[in-house]
C-alpha cells in the first residue's frame, strides 16, 4: 500500500481511527475526516507519530455536498490521486419504530447512507482517472439480519449501504475500482458504550466466539480489502462478527 492515498471518514475515534492507523502502517498516506476537529487533529497527530506516514486531517460534514467537494479538491491539489476511500462515518440509533420520529429517521439515513453516497460520488472521478480504486463501506450485521439492540433507522441505513455497495461494484468494475462492504457486529468503541451491560452480555451469549469485536478486527479486514491482494473481490459483504450471524 506504499504511497497509496487513502481517505477515511469519521476517523477521529473508534473503528475509523484504527482503520486510518492500519492503512498508515501499511505505508499509505492517510487523510482523516471528522466533524470533531479537536479529536480529529489529535488522532492524526497520534497516527503520524506512530507510523511516520503522511497524515492529514480535514474537518467536514459529509452530508454537505459543498464540504465534501472541497475535501476532494484539497486531496487533488495536495496528493493528485486518491486510491482508497473508506466510508466509515456513522451514527447509531436504538429506537424502535414507535419511538423513531421522522426527524431521527432522516438524520440517521442522512449521515449513514447519504453521507456515504456523497463521499463516493465526489471521490470517484479521481479513481476513474487513474483506473484504480478501492472503496470500502462500513455497514453492520444489523443491515443483514435486523438489529439486536439497535434501532430501525440504523439497521435500514446499514442495509441501504449493502445495496449501494453491490450496485456500485457493477458500475465501477470497468474502471478497475472494487467496492466492498464490511459488516461488523458490536465492537468495543465509544459508540458501543451506549449499550447496557445486559445488552452487551446478550450479544456475547449469541456470539459463537464468545466475545465482542475489537476495532482491530474490523481494521484488519478493511486493510486486506484495501490492498492489491483483494483485486478480484468486488460487490461483497465481509462479515466480521465472531459467528453472531452466519449468512
Amino acid at each position, binding site marked *: 500500500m506504499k504511497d497509496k492515498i487513502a481517505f477515511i471518514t469519521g476517523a477521529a475515534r473508534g473503528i475509523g481511527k484504527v482503520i486510518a492507523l492500519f492503512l498508515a502502517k501499511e505505508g499509505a498516506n492517510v487523510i482523516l475526516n471528522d466533524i470533531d476537529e479537536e479529536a480529529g487533529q489529535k488522532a492524526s497527530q497520534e497516527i503520524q507519530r506512530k507510523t511516520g506516514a503522511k497524515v492529514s486531517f480535514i474537518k467536514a460534514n459529509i452530508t454537505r455536498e459543498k464540504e465534501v467537494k472541497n475535501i476532494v479538491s484539497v486531496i487533488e491539489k495536495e496528493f493528485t490521486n486518491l486510491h482508497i476511500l473508506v466510508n466509515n462515518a456513522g451514527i447509531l440509533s436504538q429506537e424502535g419504530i414507535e419511538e423513531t420520529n421522522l426527524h431521527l429517521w432522516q438524520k440517521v439515513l442522512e449521515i449513514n447512507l447519504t453521507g456515504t453516497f456523497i463521499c463516493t460520488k465526489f471521490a470517484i472521478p479521481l479513481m476513474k482517472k487513474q483506473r484504480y480504486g478501492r472503496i470500502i463501506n462500513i455497514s453492520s450485521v444489523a443491515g443483514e439480519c435486523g438489529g439486536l439492540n439497535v434501532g430501525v433507522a440504523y439497521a435500514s441505513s446499514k442495509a441501504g449501504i449493502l445495496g449501494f455497495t453491490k450496485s456500485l461494484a457493477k458500475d465501477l468494475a470497468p474502471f478497475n475500482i472494487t467496492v466492498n462492504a464490511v459488516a461488523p457486529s458490536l465492537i468495543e468503541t465509544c459508540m458501543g458504550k451506549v449499550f447496557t451491560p445486559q445488552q452487551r452480555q446478550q450479544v456475547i451469549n449469541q456470539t459463537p466466539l464468545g466475545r465482542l469485536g475489537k476495532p482491530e478486527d474490523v481494521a484488519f479486514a478493511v486493510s486486506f480489502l484495501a490492498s492489491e*491482494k483483494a483485486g478480484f*473481490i468486488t460487490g461483497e459483504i465481509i462479515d466480521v462478527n465472531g*459467528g453472531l450471524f452466519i*449468512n
Partner: protein
Amino acid sequence: MIENMDLKLEGKVGIVTGASRGIGREIALTLGRYGVSVAVNYCKDSKSAQEVVEKIENQQGRAIPVKADVSNKDEVIQMVEKTLHQFSQINILVNNAGICPFAEFFDITEKMWDRVLSTNLKGAFLCCRYVAEVMKEQGGGKIVNISSISGIVGSATQVHYCSSKGGENMLTKSLAIALAPYKINVNAILPGTVMTDSNREYYRENPELEEETLERTPLKRFGSPADIAEVVAFLCSEKADWITGSLWPIDGGFAS
C-alpha cells in the same frame, strides 16, 4: 507485491488438500512463502506434488508431500498422523481437493454423483473431522474450505458439482458454530471461474461459455490462483480471528 501486512504465519503448520496443481498448488506455495510448514496433499500425481514441495523448500520453507484420497477415512487419518509426525502440530487446514466435471443432467450417472459428492463434500468433512480433533487438543486453529460460487449460483451442466459445493457451504457454517468453543475458525472461499487444469479443456471446447462467464463478471476477467491464495493466507492469520462462518465469494463481482 508491495504489502507488508504481516500475517505472522511463521512456524505454523498447514495441510492443503489437492495441492499438486491449480488453486491448491498456489495456496501451498503462498502459505510456504509466509513461513507455514506445508503438508502438500495429493491423490495421484506424486511428481507434481514433489515439485511443489521442492519449490517451497527452494524459497527456504518446509514442506512434505502426503498422499491421501480425501474421501477415504483411513487415508485421511494417515495424512493427519504423517503431518503430526513430521511437524508436531497442525494449525491450518485448507480443504481444496475437489473435482469439477461438467455434464448434462441426464448424463449424470449414480457413479458420477457419488464420486463428486465423496471427493468434494465427504472429503472436506473427513479432513475437518480428524484435523479439528488435533486443533481442539492444541487450543485452536483455522479451517478454510475452498468451495465455489457454484455453491450459491446453480448451473445446468454442473448439478452434481453445485450440490456438493452447496453442501460444503453449510458444512462451513455449521462447523463454525460447532468449533467456535475450541477457538477454531471455519470459513469458506467461493471462487468464481479460475482457469486451471480441471476446467481449461472444457472452456477450450466451449468458447461460448467463456464469453458468457466473462459477460456476467463485472471485472471482465477470470480469477487467478493468486487471487484465491492471498485470501486464504489472510483467513489463516490472526488478523481474521474474529471472522468465522463466513463465505467469501472471490469472483470479480459475478454473484453480487
